[in-house]
């Protein structure tokens, strides 16, 4: 076909994306036309409802596998799976924001619009095997988040986070784009699936420029998933950004980056597995070690969770290293579980904060078990799941990821992984220790209680227990999603 005219039916397939865009534009209008305080709550509720409707329409895409818009965009189970993760994250973050954004006075039409645009970018990023679409998705997502990070205008840390993320992010994006350009330059192909065909036909294929291009892709994606040594931004940005946005970044952005990473590498670059898996092996190991060991020294929970999120990227990379396409579903499952544990944990962090201050020091958690047993219990479940203790979902996730490594006979990688999880157990348990074993020092004041937080925590707790005890359905879904690479 010479002329690229999309068939009108193609638009049916991107209904979720269209809906998100429409909602986001509506919020922008509302934000622009009215005074903020009065409409913030309404926007939040509409955003939540809009997300639920979008989830409904996304669910209907399950099972469809086709290329649309002349191969620029793809609908497949893999993309749909990730879309669902993003939308669930969006729904939970919106629920939390209903109260949190009000408290911090950042809630407005734009806030929710940016959240939705961010998710739009993530969805585009993970449902295309065309480098240009992937890049556009990544940029839409990143630009939204650069702004969201700096929303706490009066807070110098927030502004720092935004600027830091923007500068470093721009660099990483340049790397990514450069990598794509080099691959295009050496092969003349910009579509991942076509690229795979090309490479398989030309086996063995090893142009220097192409190999450098792969390296640049790893750098670019490595930045977004917060792997060492491209992680320097993570702690500062996670700590400085509004906590709801931190939760959003730690889960949504990470999942999106992994989604695109897995798609590119498991489709086009699988013939080069021996080459890049060695690099990724090394990155996985240092990511886990640096993340966990540095987290040991943190006394600020937000910062600790930032380092723990680096470490978790390392665990997921364990499975990524193996290149085992059957067990790649472990990464999808892990990302799903990880989203619930992290949003849950950050919700508790939000509840302990007050306007203008996070109160995320370890000492604020002292005696929480006695003062607020329910919140402490939920936090314990999130922490234990992060530590990978059965029967919670975090355990099944680790189990699955490690089984990928063992199956591919990466024994040392698996051993390093489990030893790291012991180190990690220490700092997760330390929070529990503060909650249950220490007496609270002085008056801790009231904590920010609201039914929305309770709902989010209950959803997360339920998800972790359900996915931990009856993982079967979720694992099969993840396996189906990954089967497109088969």
């Amino acid at each position, binding site marked *: 076909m010479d002329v690229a005219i999309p068939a009108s039916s193609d638009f049916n397939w991107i209904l979720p994306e269209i809906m998100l865009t429409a909602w986001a534009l509506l919020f922008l209008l509302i934000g622009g036309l009215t005074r903020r305080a009065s409409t913030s709550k309404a926007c939040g509720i509409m955003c939540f409802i809009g997300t639920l409707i979008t989830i409904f329409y996304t669910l209907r895409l399950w099972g469809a596998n086709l290329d649309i818009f002349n191969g620029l965009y793809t609908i497949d189970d893999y993309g749909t799976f990730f879309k669902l993760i993003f939308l669930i994250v969006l729904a939970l973050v919106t629920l939390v924001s209903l109260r949190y954004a009000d408290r911090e006075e950042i809630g407005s039409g734009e806030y929710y619009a940016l959240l939705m645009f961010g998710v739009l970018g993530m969805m585009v990023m993970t449902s295309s095997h065309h480098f240009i679409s992937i890049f556009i998705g990544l940029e839409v997502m990143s630009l939204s988040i650069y702004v969201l990070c700096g929303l706490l205008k009066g807070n110098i840390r927030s502004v720092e986070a935004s600027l830091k993320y923007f500068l470093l992010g721009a660099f990483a994006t340049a790397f990514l784009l450069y990598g794509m350009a080099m691959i295009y330059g050496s092969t003349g192909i910009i579509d991942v699936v076509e690229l795979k065909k090309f490479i398989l036909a030309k086996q063995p294929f090893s142009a220097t420029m192409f190999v450098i291009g792969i390296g640049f892709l790893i750098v670019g994606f490595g930045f977004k998933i917060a792997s060492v040594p491209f992680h320097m931004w993570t702690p500062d940005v996670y700590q400085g950004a509004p906590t709801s946005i931190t939760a959003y970044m730690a889960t949504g952005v990470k999942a999106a980056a992994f989604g695109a990473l897995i798609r590119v590498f498991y489709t086009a670059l699988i013939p080069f597995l021996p080459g890049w898996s060695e690099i990724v*092996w090394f990155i996985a190991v240092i990511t886990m070690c640096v993340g966990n060991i540095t987290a040991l020294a943190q006394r600020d929970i937000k910062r600790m969770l930032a380092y723990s999120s680096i470490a978790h990227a390392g665990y997921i990379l364990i499975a990524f290293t193996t290149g085992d396409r059957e067990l790649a579903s472990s990464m999808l499952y892990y990302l799903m579980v990880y989203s619930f544990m992290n949003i849950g944990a950050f919700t508790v962090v939000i509840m302990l904060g007050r306007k203008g201050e996070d109160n995320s020091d370890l000492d604020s958690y002292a005696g929480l078990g*006695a003062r607020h047993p329910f919140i402490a219990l939920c936090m314990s479940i999130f922490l*234990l799941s992060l530590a990978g*203790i*059965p*029967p919670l979902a975090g*355990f099944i996730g680790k*189990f699955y990821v*490690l*089984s990928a490594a*063992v*199956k*591919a*006979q*990466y*024994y*040392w*990688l*698996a*051993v390093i992984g*489990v*030893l790291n*999880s*012991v180190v990690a*157990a*220490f700092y997760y*348990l*330390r929070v529990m*220790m503060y909650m*249950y*074993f220490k007496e609270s020092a002085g008056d801790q004041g009231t904590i920010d209680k609201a039914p929305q937080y309770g709902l989010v925590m209950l959803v997360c707790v339920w998800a972790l227990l359900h996915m931990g005890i009856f*993982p*079967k359905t979720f*694992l*099969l879904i993840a396996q189906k999603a990954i089967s497109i690479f088969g």
Partner: protein
Amino acid sequence: MTVMSIPILSFLIYFPLLGAILLLFVNRKNSQFIKVFTLVFSLVELAVSIPLFFKFDETAKTMQFVEKAQWFPEWGISYFIGIDGISLLLVLLTTFLTVICVLCSWKAIEDRIKEYYITFLILETAMIGTLCALDLVLFYIFWELMLIPMYLLIGIWGGPRRIYAAIKFFLFTMAGSVLMFIAILALYFYYYKTTGVYTFNVLELYQASIPVVKQYWFFGAFALSFAIKVPMFPVHTWLPDAHTEAPTAGSVILAGVLLKMGTYGFLRFAVPLFPAAAFDAIPLMSILAVIGIIYGAIVSMMQPDLKRLIAFSSVSHLGYVMLGLFAFNIQGVQGGIYQMLNHGISTGGLFLIVGMIYERRHTRMIADFGGLAKVMPVFATFFMIITLSSIALPGTNGFVGEFLILLGAFKSNAVYGVLATTGVILGAVYMLWMFQRVMFGVITKEENRNLKDLGKREILILSSMVFFIILMGVYPKMFFKKMDVSVAEYLSFVKAKNAQYRTLPQGATEAAKVNDLSNTK
């Protein structure tokens, strides 16, 4: 419906959990109700477990009371539980000691009573689950689940250095178990590679034939995990801290049941799964066991703190168990299992004794006591009987176990037997010396003059312990006949399996070794 078709083991596993969940909804101010409620639950649990003993078919070689259901068939994970003569007695020990622990916490725990009993019931669920699980994933889940309640028990209701002890306990045990976890996965994929079947079912995995070199790695990972739990020398250092800081009931359950999980793990998993490696490890394990026996005894002698003394005596006693298990003859293994039960009762009893004295004096230093026998005659009697059982005086349960272990050890290797026997002497030395310093002599401290003797509840607790000390001492047959067949079956299985590996051509193993190394990345 016959008795066998009632899911009695599942009931035993989940009934305490149900109790814990119900307790969540009880008002915390209602502390008396919480205590009675937990006591009733643990008594029902005990009552349900007793028929197991009598309904157990002691002639059957297979697992009994088996329940099997698919959990995740695509991966070969099943809900598969069952017991044989070995785990039967440990399950009973668990349900019995839980009742004792609830009773002995009656007055000792005043803080956060509700959480305490919830934790305890969850711990019971995890312990029984670990003993019954015959699926490696299920086993691992319960095994890890045991950690959290115990961590909380030590960390919340423990002594002054509880946080250090709790974290040390957690990290030690977890470090061991995660390595076991890798070995489980490696075994699983190896079995799939050779047979084409995904399964975590232990009984099926027993049949796997694994190259000897691989076995070393697998056995090493399993053994490390279990050795930490036992604990064997030199990975025992967490135990004295954990014991010293834990509340009385925590110490009782830790000594009584949790340590047995290590030795049980050897019996059920490490040895039968990897027999060739286990047989090659006999010298190493036996030497470590003997070091543990002697070292534990010598260090005990020097302890100023009663609880620390008993903790180190545990290291010594568990050394006997390991020595017996690795003698690989019927006397040694049976003695080892019997000693596991004995240790639960005698050492558990000693911790109870220390707990009672601590409640009165708020000190555990031996130097703070002396001459108590005159003030507390009833207490002194019980203390004496339990001490003697710990020393293994003929007529008490300890004698039967230690005698058989030493018999087994002499039969397999006289050197270990001789060395281990010195531990018996040292054991008598430190226990009797401790007893003398605490109970006899003149009263040196004024505070000790007006100590109250035991109350009814305490007498009830200690009498039930003494009952088993005597019963197991004079009529061991009652217990041995339950495990005779299982132990004989276990021994003949591991020996046959080991012999089978020995007859493999040497070249095959070498080839496997080369193959194995080249595949490791």
